[in-house]
């Protein structure tokens, strides 16, 4: 197990370095001079040259990448921004704040958003899927199945403002979505994120309802489930202890894949509700061609996905004893 993890993490690091090198090259090779952004309206060439030097952009690309890489572990010094302690991912070209602290600062928001939405998705999606499977062909099944189709076709940027308008502005039932640190006030954290969770999870929940239903129906037809029934296990035990275990394996596989999509959904949700998370950071970085921020967010996003996939694989081994971590 430990050696497995060490190997996986080492592999992940190699992947991240490759991703960062490629991303760095792609971003910094764009035919656009970020130095312009630091120059006044009438920008003399000598000022432009000075800024390039200040930003460390007057060196060959691979040297710049090397500095970037070293900066993560050893920190860096920028004339334009001052010192950047390790782990340094550079300074944002747009907001002039350290990229790393900007990401760390916003991480709890995105984490709260995605984790909360994951809980809603899994809890609610699996629950309704199980109900549907339990009552195959009955009205409850039909309601769950058809609402899942409706849910899947709704879009965050459509449902989000609509719900916000009715629940927040018109009826004033729930507070305007924002981020309150859980350490500050857990209740406020919860109530202020409720709407974003629901909105982000709607499209996914529906998918998980459908998947759980079909997986359960499939599992219930498995031999070992029949054996369990032949042993006199009650329907409930058979359903929840036996079939459920088997149904969860493909669900977890797909959830691992969906995590990336969920992060994508979080970006739109953050935009929709003006939440200051990594997603908003990414969107603004794209809008502003903020290369260091873009690179930072890409790397952190990639790291998160790689890490979560390791977690999913480990989770696998816990659910399915046939899987060995080696």
């Amino acid at each position, binding site marked *: 197990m430990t050696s497995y993890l060490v190997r996986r993490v080492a592999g992940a690091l190699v992947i991240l370095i490759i991703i960062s090198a490629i991303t760095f090259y792609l971003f910094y090779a764009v035919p656009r001079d970020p130095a312009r952004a630091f120059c006044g309206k009438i920008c003399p060439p000598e*000022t432009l040259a*000075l800024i390039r030097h200040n930003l460390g952009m007057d060196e060959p690309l691979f040297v710049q990448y090397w500095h970037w890489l070293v900066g993560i572990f050893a920190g860096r010094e920028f004339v334009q921004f001052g010192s950047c302690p390790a782990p340094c991912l550079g300074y944002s070209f747009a907001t002039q*704040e350290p990229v790393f602290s900007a990401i760390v600062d916003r991480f709890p928001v995105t984490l709260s958003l995605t984790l909360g939405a994951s809980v809603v998705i899994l809890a609610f999606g699996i629950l309704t899927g199980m109900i549907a499977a339990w009552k195959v062909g009955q009205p409850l099944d039909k309601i769950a199945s058809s609402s899942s189709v409706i849910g899947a076709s709704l879009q965050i940027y459509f449902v989000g403002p609509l719900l916000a308008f009715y629940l927040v502005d018109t009826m004033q039932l729930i507070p305007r979505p924002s981020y309150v640190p859980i350490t500050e006030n857990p209740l406020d954290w919860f109530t202020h994120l409720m709407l974003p969770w629901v909105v982000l999870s709607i499209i996914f929940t529906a998918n998980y309802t459908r998947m759980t239903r079909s997986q359960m129906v499939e599992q219930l037809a498995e031999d070992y489930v029949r054996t369990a029934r032949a042993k006199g296990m009650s329907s409930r035990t058979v359903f929840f202890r036996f079939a459920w275990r088997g149904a969860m394996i493909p669900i977890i596989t797909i959830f691992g894949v969906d995590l990336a999509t969920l992060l994508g959904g979080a970006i739109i949700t953050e935009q929709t509700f003006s939440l200051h998370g990594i997603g908003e950071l990414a969107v603004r970085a794209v809008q502003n061609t903020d290369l260091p921020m873009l690179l930072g967010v890409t790397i952190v996003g990639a790291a998160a996905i790689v890490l979560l996939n390791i977690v999913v694989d480990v989770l696998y081994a816990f659910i399915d004893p046939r899987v060995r971590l080696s």
Partner: protein
Amino acid sequence: MTSHSRRIASMTAVLAAGALALAGCAKGGGGGAPQGGAGATSQKPLENKAVSAISVGTAADSTGPAPEVPGAKSGGTVYMIDRDDFSHLDPGRVYLNYNSSVSKLFTRTLTAYKHDDSGNIKLVGDLATDTGTTTDGGKTWKFTLKDGLKWQDGSPITSGDIKYSFERLFADFITEGPDYAETWLVPDPKKPFRDQYKGPYDGKELDTIETPDDKTVVFRLNDVHPDFNFTVAMTGYGAVPKAHDTKQKYDKQPFSSGPYKIVSHITDKSLDLERNEHWDPKTDPIRHAYPDKFHMEFGIQVQQSTERFMADAGNDKQAFTFHNAVAPERTQEVLNDPELMKRSLRGLTPFTTFYNINTKRITDVNVRKAIITAWPSKQIQQLQGGEVSIGKIATTVMSPTVLGYEAFDLYGKLAKPEGDPEAAKALLAKSGNPNPTVVYAYNQTPTQEKVTVAIKEALTKAGFKVVAKPLNAGTYYDAIGPVDNKYDVYWGGWAADWPTGSTAIQPQYDGRLIADNAPNYTHLNVPEINDAIDKANAITDAAEAGKAWAAIDRQIMDQAAIVPEFYQTYFGLYGSGLGGVKFDPIEGEQSALDIYVK
């Protein structure tokens, strides 16, 4: 998102504005585009005349406190919602208008603009007792500081601090702000100023700024600059205390000389201000500081801020926005709602847009005139959401917000805003080439594609052969920057740094400033105009100078160097619980200085 186009001032702003205004207008250009004409008719139209009388005030005008706003009361918290956080708060790094607007709450400058109820604008002394004096036509400027000026820690603001504030602008990390004063304060304006002075951090002083006593600052410029007192009204020349200069870090947490100080600034999230007890209203002719606190929140898209102002719920009642305009798709709805219109602000900004005509390539003035005459200004305006959302059709170089602006329309654009192909044909006939080819370069965005179609159609009708060259939005300015670029017509935007002709006109039309990537994109180089610029620059009387600049404006239009596009407009909302929210034509957005909680 059209609001981006009003983020005026720096080159980057122009860059961003170019890309974003075009991108933003994609919304207005779609099916739901508010029809500018229809909505505007129910409202009093903004006129193409000088929006305000701009003048230089007296020492009496410069004395505090600022005249009371009728009905205003102190106390409460004012909320501000905007899309973007302020990119810079270190005065030396401030160029953009929205950074300036907020800076006025905690950064004071030698001079500033005072607005009265009838829309007149006066340049007055802010830190200085008056707008400065010069005895040699504008080469030597003397400012005297008021009594009772204090930093947020209670220490006095001295002439040494002012001198230091200018010296630190030479430091290598301060690159974003204006560099007029820096260029004028070194011995040789033709050489890079940083080669002549490296800033105060290595202990060296700039000897062209003298401080004979704690209250007096004397600037010895290398040439005559009669409007230097306007120059120092820019936030870029605001006061920074030597004792509290944190260099690069100062940008996030400047030290206050104004009525508020920064309690917390979380980048891209929020900015909280509370009263600076050491600010004395008696020293300040322009700031009221009615609210106890400001809470500013960022990341609110225009669609959201518009909806929130319309809903007017909770704290949003006490909210305004510096910059966010009404979302284009909501414009019509707002215009039709009298209650909403009561808490709306409309006005002309200093931002002008135009199409540069490359005079190096199209050398025949009649061809250039024919382009202007045939230009489909009306169609372009409608494609971008009409007058309310984008702006008024322009006919001059200078904006109506510039001192001395004169309205004239040499090519009958107001009479025939959709273009006059017949008149254009007549002009082309005079040129001897009835079918000249025009290479039109444009930013490739959905809206600009549509605009390009309209332009192509109109010019073709007049006999032109139009070759449209789409350019990547990210590299647009790099493509049109070189003097020997291969395009004939391309879009641009500009705003004066202070409301006189010298920054509205000279950087763009002085033929001696032509260089790669310099603002003179028309490459216009007419000796008479160059001479006239020099003369206007030397006129000490502001009103006289204004007239001279207006004459130059006419000369440039006579040369047909640009097709003026829009004087851009601002249209924004604020919450019902606020009073004293005003439109600031100098910055082109909402002003916080007179705001109070009802």
